[in-house]
């Protein structure tokens, strides 16, 4: 008992300022947490079919329940959602299996995941073959769209960023100036402007009759934008690799590409894992901006749902739900990058 008291005194009340902070923070917690818990759980309504059932004054989770499929899949036809679930299910299983596979098979699984898998998934999402009902991209939405945009942008922006980073350090002036120009251009414009150009202005420049899917345009725009940031992160890593590594790889007869692929990049990328993870998380959280070109990702779907005459006034519940979804994904990405860092840790 005395031990506990001593501990509390030492940690929380060691000086008048500490005591003051402890008391005021406790008071703040007392003021905010119980009403929050009460709103979220105790007086919340979980069962029911409409807004009328929410009379308790707490959160109305019925809203999220009824709209759940829309928040997850957008306007994707309800009978076809297995076509979305299947590839994402395979992706999750593969990522888990990947951790336990031995090195020999890992390579194959990795190659499968980055080349045939995205193509097959896209075919399944859009349908139109083997009797599968075609589903146009305008019907894609919700969390599904958020993930499609971020996963494809991540897959494409990473190699492009690495190439740009190498280009910026190249001795060939055309390559160097092009890379510098590209990076500075895309870093200098706000993402919302880029999306607006891709979504709204670009179709006006195309010859009449030709049309490029809006989702494709948006993914390309986000990819180019994020590649510029990725390039600068990777360049930081390239600079941190010692001069000796470059000289040594040259000395054993390796050319530019060989030395970069086998010696320089593995070391450089390892150093900048936190920066890369940062860029990916930022990219993921930038996706709600596609709202300006009329794509309804998860936040857009919540905004649409809350304007339904039968569900007016449900904004808070919707936003809390979206915040939770975003937090889960961002936290998972952050943990995953930490575990990779741990695994690749070597003492230099």
């Amino acid at each position, binding site marked *: 008992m005395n031990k506990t008291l001593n501990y509390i005194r030492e940690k929380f009340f060691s000086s008048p300022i500490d005591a003051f902070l402890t008391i005021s923070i406790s008071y703040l917690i007392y003021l905010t947490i119980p009403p929050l818990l009460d709103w979220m759980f105790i007086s919340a309504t979980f069962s029911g079919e409409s807004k009328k059932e929410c009379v308790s004054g707490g959160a109305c989770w019925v809203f999220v329940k009824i709209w759940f*499929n829309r928040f997850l899949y957008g306007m994707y036809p309800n009978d076809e959602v297995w076509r979305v679930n299947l590839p994402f299910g395979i992706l999750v299983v593969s990522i888990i299996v990947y951790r336990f596979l031995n090195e020999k098979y890992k390579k194959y699984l990795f190659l499968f995941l980055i080349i045939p898998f995205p193509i097959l998934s896209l075919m399944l999402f859009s349908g139109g073959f083997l009797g599968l009902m075609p589903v146009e991209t305008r019907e894609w939405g919700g969390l599904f769209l958020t993930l499609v945009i971020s996963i494809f942008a991540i897959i494409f922006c990473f190699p492009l960023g690495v190439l740009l980073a190498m280009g910026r350090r190249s001795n060939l002036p055309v390559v160097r*100036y092009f890379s510098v120009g590209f990076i500075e251009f895309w870093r200098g414009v706000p993402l919302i402007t880029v999306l607006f150009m891709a979504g709204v202005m670009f179709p006006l420049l195309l010859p*009449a009759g030709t049309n490029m899917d809006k989702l494709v345009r948006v993914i390309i725009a986000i990819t180019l934008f994020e590649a510029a940031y990725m390039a600068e992160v990777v360049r930081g890593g390239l600079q941190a690799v010692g001069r000796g590594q470059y000289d040594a790889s040259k000395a054993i007869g390796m050319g530019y590409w060989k030395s970069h692929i086998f010696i320089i990049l593995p070391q450089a990328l390892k150093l900048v894992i936190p920066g890369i993870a940062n860029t990916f998380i930022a990219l993921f959280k930038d996706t709600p901006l596609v709202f300006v070109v*009329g794509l309804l990702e998860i936040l857009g779907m919540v905004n649409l749902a809350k304007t339904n005459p039968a569900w007016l006034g449900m904004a808070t519940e919707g936003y809390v739900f979206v915040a939770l979804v975003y937090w889960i994904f961002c936290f998972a990405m952050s943990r995953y990058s930490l575990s990779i860092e741990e695994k690749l840790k070597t003492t230099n």
Partner: protein
Amino acid sequence: MKNIMKAIGSLSVLAFVLTACGDGGGAKKTTSTLDTTKSQGFVKCGVSQGVPGFSNADASGNWTGIDVDVCRAVAAAVLGDASKVKYTGLSAKERFTALQAGEIDILSRNTTWTLERDASIGLTFVGVNFYDGQGFMVRKSTGLKSVNDFKNGVKVCTNLGTTTELNMADFFKSKGVKYEPVVFEKADEVVQAYDAGRCDTYTTDKSALAAQSTKMKDPTEHVVLPETISKEPLGPVVRQGDSKWEDVVRWSLNVFIEAEEYGVNSGNIDSMKESKNPAIQRIVGAEGTKNGEALGLDNQWSYRIIKQIGNYGESYKRNLADTNIMPERGPNQLWTKGGILYVPPVR
């Protein structure tokens, strides 16, 4: 230095190639939208990203609303099935370019008909399906009965950077009343501020006032003042220079409204076939009527609109009255019943 020149040289070649690629833009399609719509089998309709009662999705992903019904009417007329519509949710900023670029063929997204929009951006408004206008909401306890009762120092809650804010400024200036604007970015914030008593009145389009009031603690405490301080005629828009398509959309809307005038609705249209009134005979597509042919459609086009969607009054009731968004029809009542809804005769 030489290297820099080389780089500039190659970049300008690249720029030249890119500009050359862009040159084909702006050329107009020569085929009519009516023919392409018939061959592709669906109507491409641009709607909002959620405006209560006008265009909205429900939890099963179906679009509903009074603006949506215009697109459904065109689909019923042209393709025979009101459900053959592909909807694209558009933000206010991109709506006109989406129409110009051919991403959509009808823009039905509570768009105000103004001279500038009609004349300068290559678009044509085909009619009005809702007469909106800016109004004021106050607490019943204030006892205010009219906008003329506002006194100096009145606090007004509204949205930031919209025409609403400008209309409000014009209005108070003309009345010589000093007011204090309290502006917010989002409609939700405005409503909360007003509900919390931070302002004496809340102003926005009348179609939104009633809908927003359902978010308040006690909606019955508030009342919308009778005056309207701006004109906001909302209607569907098509591309300029395609008169066949323009006519189809215009007359689909007109017959939709005229059917209500003659009492033809989705329930009684089959029995109305017996009617002796020539105007009704034209709506139900009785023998000898030639309206459909003139539009490039068959003569049952108007019958299908009313049968599948109902007339304007039914659509209004379903989307705006039953949902308590705007229970009173006000100016959106037929001209025969004291409103200003008046369409040219369908003959």
